[in-house]
């Protein structure tokens, strides 16, 4: 048995807190561990911040659509925007031997999630699909 939820937030950093609360509420209801929830909140923040800063170039009043599915084995979070498409080829992972001020966001997302997929095939924007397998599947 699973659960499903959707939320659309505005492209403002202040909206991220609302998205985190939404995610926390559903993740907690589904029985995810506190550490998993914290990781997911962080990943959600990083992904939404990237959308606001890079897809929408800091402009408010554009939609960020969130869709969450949780079942016995995994959590899937889909984040969709209609802004500038994400260019994965332009992304440079941070050199972890030299502290840098940029590049940790995508690195954190990739490190904490089990699957990360950017889809830019649509007419507009990017659909980011994030999957986290549950540490303790329900019997």
């Amino acid at each position, binding site marked *: 048995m699973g659960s499903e939820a959707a939320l659309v937030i505005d492209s403002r950093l202040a909206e991220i807190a609302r998205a985190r609360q939404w995610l926390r509420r559903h993740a907690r209801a589904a029985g995810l561990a506190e550490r998993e929830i914290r990781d997911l909140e*962080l990943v959600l923040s990083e992904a939404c911040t990237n959308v606001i800063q890079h897809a929408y170039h800091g402009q408010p009043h554009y939609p960020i659509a969130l869709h969450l599915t949780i079942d016995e084995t995994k959590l899937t979070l889909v984040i969709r925007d209609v802004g500038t498409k994400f260019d994965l080829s332009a992304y440079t992972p941070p050199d972890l031997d030299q*502290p840098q*001020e940029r590049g940790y*966001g995508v690195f954190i997302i990739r490190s*904490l999630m089990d699957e990360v997929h950017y889809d830019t095939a649509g007419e507009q924007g990017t659909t980011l699909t994030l999957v986290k397998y549950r540490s303790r599947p329900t019997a």
Partner: protein
Amino acid sequence: MDCTVEQRGDLAIIGVRGDLQATTVDHFQATVDRLLGAGTRYYVIDLAELGGLDSAGLAALIRLYKRVRLGTGDVCLAQVPSPVQRLLDLTRLSRVFETFPTVAEAAAALEAPD
């Protein structure tokens, strides 16, 4: 979020209360800029009451580290919560920032450098 500052000569102890994230990092940055502008060289960042930390918060800490290390200054972290320590380990920034269990130990290390 809120920042408290305790100044001890050339050392500033900055207490961060709440989230140090993209939404709140400007306040921390303004506090740091003011202290750097006044010539403060040594910093203890007390994270005991830190809520969340994200890449924007990490970037602010790295920015401070780079600026003080241009001169003879230094920055270290005190009372790091375990989720934050995990993020520092993940990004290998735990090799950059020296951490201490208490503010007193961190301040003593900076006040009596090698």
